[in-house]
C-alpha cells in the first residue's frame, strides 16, 4: 500500500479535531494540496485560511496559541520554513508557543514544480531554532501517530511531510515514541539510518546486502530533534560504519545531526547520502530520486564500498 504522508496528516487531523476542540488548523491557500481541506469541511469554525501570506499564517497561529488553541499551521515546506522563518523564530519558538508547523511537499519529490518548490534545507533551518522539535515520519502509520504525539505535547513542533505516496512499512502495532529511533533490522557490519520516505529504501538496500552476506543494521530516525543519541552511539560502537539517508541537503539535516552525536561520543566513519549542495530541477519524483542518488542502488553500493575499504 502506498500513501503520501500529507494524506495521513489530513486524515488524522479530522480524528484529532473530533477529539479535541482546541485544535485549530490554518492554511495558506493550499488546503487541497496540504490535505487540510477535510478538516476545513468538517470544522469550518476552527479552520482559518490565511490566504497567500505565510508570515501572517505563522503570526496568527502564534496568537491563537496564546488563547489556548493547539494551532496546526500548514503550507508547503519551502514557504513554511523559508518565507516565514523569522516569524517562526520570534513569534513561535522564542515564546515557546503551542504551534505545530505541518509542512508538506518537502524534499525533491514535489517533482515537476522544480527547484523553487523543492525544500531541501528545511530540516537544517528548523534544527537551528531553540524550542523547535522536528519529526519526519516514514509512512502512514507513523505520520498519524506522530501528528497525534505533536498535538499532545506543549510547544512548537515541525512535522515534515511529503507529496509522493510512500510504501507502508510499519504495522498497526507500531509505536511511535517521540525522540526515539526504531531498530528495523539487526546487523553488525554497518548501520544505515534513514528518515522519511528514505527509510523504506534503506530496508530494501539492507535486503540486497544480506544476499551478499553483509548484515546491515537499519534504523528509522523520525525524530530529528531531539535526536536519539543512544541508538546512534550503540550503532556506531557495534557496527563502526554509518550511512545516513535523507531527502534533504547533506548540510544540516539528518546526516549532520547524526555526525554531531558520533563525533562527540564515538567517532566512526559516517557517509551522508542526500542532496549534494545543489538545487533540484523539474522532473518526475522517481527520476529526481535517481538523478540525485536517493536510491536503493546508491545505498547498496555505498555500503559495499565502505565495507570493502575497511577490509583492505
Amino acid at each position, binding site marked *: 500500500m502506498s500513501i503520501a504522508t500529507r494524506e495521513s496528516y489530513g486524515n488524522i487531523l479530522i480524528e484529532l479535531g473530533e477529539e479535541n476542540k482546541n485544535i*485549530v488548523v490554518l492554511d495558506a491557500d493550499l488546503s487541497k494540496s496540504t490535505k487540510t481541506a477535510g478538516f476545513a469541511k468538517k470544522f469550518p*469554525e*476552527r479552520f*482559518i485560511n*490565511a*490566504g497567500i*501570506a505565510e*508570515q*501572517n499564517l*505563522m*503570526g*496568527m*497561529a*502564534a*496568537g*491563537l*496559541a*496564546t*488563547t*489556548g*488553541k493547539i*494551532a496546526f499551521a500548514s503550507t508547503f515546506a519551502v514557504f513554511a520554513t523559508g518565507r516565514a522563518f*523569522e*516569524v517562526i523564530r*520570534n*513569534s513561535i519558538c*522564542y*515564546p*515557546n508557543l503551542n504551534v505545530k508547523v505541518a509542512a508538506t511537499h518537502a524534499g525533491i519529490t514535489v517533482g515537476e514544480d522544480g527547484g523553487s518548490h523543492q525544500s531541501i534545507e528545511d530540516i537544517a533551518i528548523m534544527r537551528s531554532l531553540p524550542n523547535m522539535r522536528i519529526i519526519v515520519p516514514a509512512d502512514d502509520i507513523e505520520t498519524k501517530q506522530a501528528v497525534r504525539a505533536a498535538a499532545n505535547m506543549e510547544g512548537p513542533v515541525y512535522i515534515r511531510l511529503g507529496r509522493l505516496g510512500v510504501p507502508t512499512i510499519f504495522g498497526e502495532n507500531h509505536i511511535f515514541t517521540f525522540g526515539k529511533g526504531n531498530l528495523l533490522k539487526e546487523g553488525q557490519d554497518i548501520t544505515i539510518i534513514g528518515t522519511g520516505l528514505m527509510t523504506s529504501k534503506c530496508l530494501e538496500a539492507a535486503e540486497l546486502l544480506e544476499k551478499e552476506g553483509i548484515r546491515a543494521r537499519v534504523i528509522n530516525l523520525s525524530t530529528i530533534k531531539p535526536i536519539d543519541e543512544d541508538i546512534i552511539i550503540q550503532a556506531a560502537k557495534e557496527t563502526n560504519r554509518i550511512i545516513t539517508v535523507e531527502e534533504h541537503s547533506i548540510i544540516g539535516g539528518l546526516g549532520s545531526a547524526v555526525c554531531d552525536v558520533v563525533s562527540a561520543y564515538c567517532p566512526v566513519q559516517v557517509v551522508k547520502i542526500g542532496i549534494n549542495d545543489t538545487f533540484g530541477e523539474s522532473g518526475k519524483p522517481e527520476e529526481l530520486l535517481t538523478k540525485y542518488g536517493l536510491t536503493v542502488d546508491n545505498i547498496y553500493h555505498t555500503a559495499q564500498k565502505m565495507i570493502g575499504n575497511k577490509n583492505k
Partner: protein
Amino acid sequence: METMKIYANQLRIHIINMLTESGSGHPGGSLSAADLLIYLYFKEMNIDSEDKDNPNRDRFILSKGHAAPVLYGTLAMKGFFSINELKNLRKMGSFLQGHPDMKKVPGVEMSTGSLGQGFSAAVGVGLGFKIDKSVNRVYTLLGDGELQEGIVWEAAMAASHYKLDNLVAIIDNNGLQIDGTNDEVMKVNPLKEKWESFGWNVIEINGHCFSDMEKAFAAAKQCKGQPTVIIAKTSKGKGISFMENQVGWHGVTPSQAERARAIEELEKSNR
C-alpha cells in the same frame, strides 16, 4: 481625565529614569505612546494584575516592541510587578528584556520586537476569541514606521476578512523613524485611505488627548463586523522639550544632566 494626565506624567518619569539607568533603549517612541498606554490600562481594558491569567481579560500586545519601557512602566504602575524592578531594564538577570518577553514579564501577553509580528499575533488572538465566542477584546499598538513591514498588511487583510470587531489597532503616528521622517525613508501616508481600503473602521485622534481616546474607544466598541484602527497623532519624545519631534532621540538614552532636566520639566507640568 486629570488623573490620567498625572499617571502619564508619572509614567514618563519612570521611562526617563529606567532608560538613564540602562544606558540603552528607546525613549522617543516610548514617550509618544505614554498617554495611550495609560488610557488603555487604567480606563479601557478589562485587566487586573491580581487575576492576571483570568481567561476573560482583555489583551494588549505592544507590536512596536522596542517601546518596551512604556509597557514596563505601565505594567509596574498597574501592579504587575514592583516599580523598583524598572531600574533593572536591559540588565543581566533581569526579566525586563530589551524587548518584551511574555515568558518572563508578568502582564506581557506576547513576545514582540520584530516589527509587524505582534500585530499578526493580535489578529490570531482576535480569531481565538471569536472561535470561543468570548467577548474579550484585543488591543495592539503599532508604530507608523512599522507599517512598512509586509506582514502588517497581510494581517490587516485577514482581520477585516474575518470581521474581527474585537480587535483595535492603534497607530502611534509620530511620523519619525530611525533614519528620518516616514516620508523621507518610506512613505506610509495616506494612512486613513490605506486602512479604509483594507476594510477597517478608521478613527483619527490626537494621541495625547484623553477625551479623544474616550470617544474613539467607545466608537470602536460600537463598530460591528469590522476591526477598528485608531490613528493617533503623537509627538515623538512627548513631554520633554528637548526630545520632542527629534529623530535623534529614537534610540539614544539621556545623560544624568538630561535626566534631571527632563524630570524637572515633567514635574513642573504636573502642577
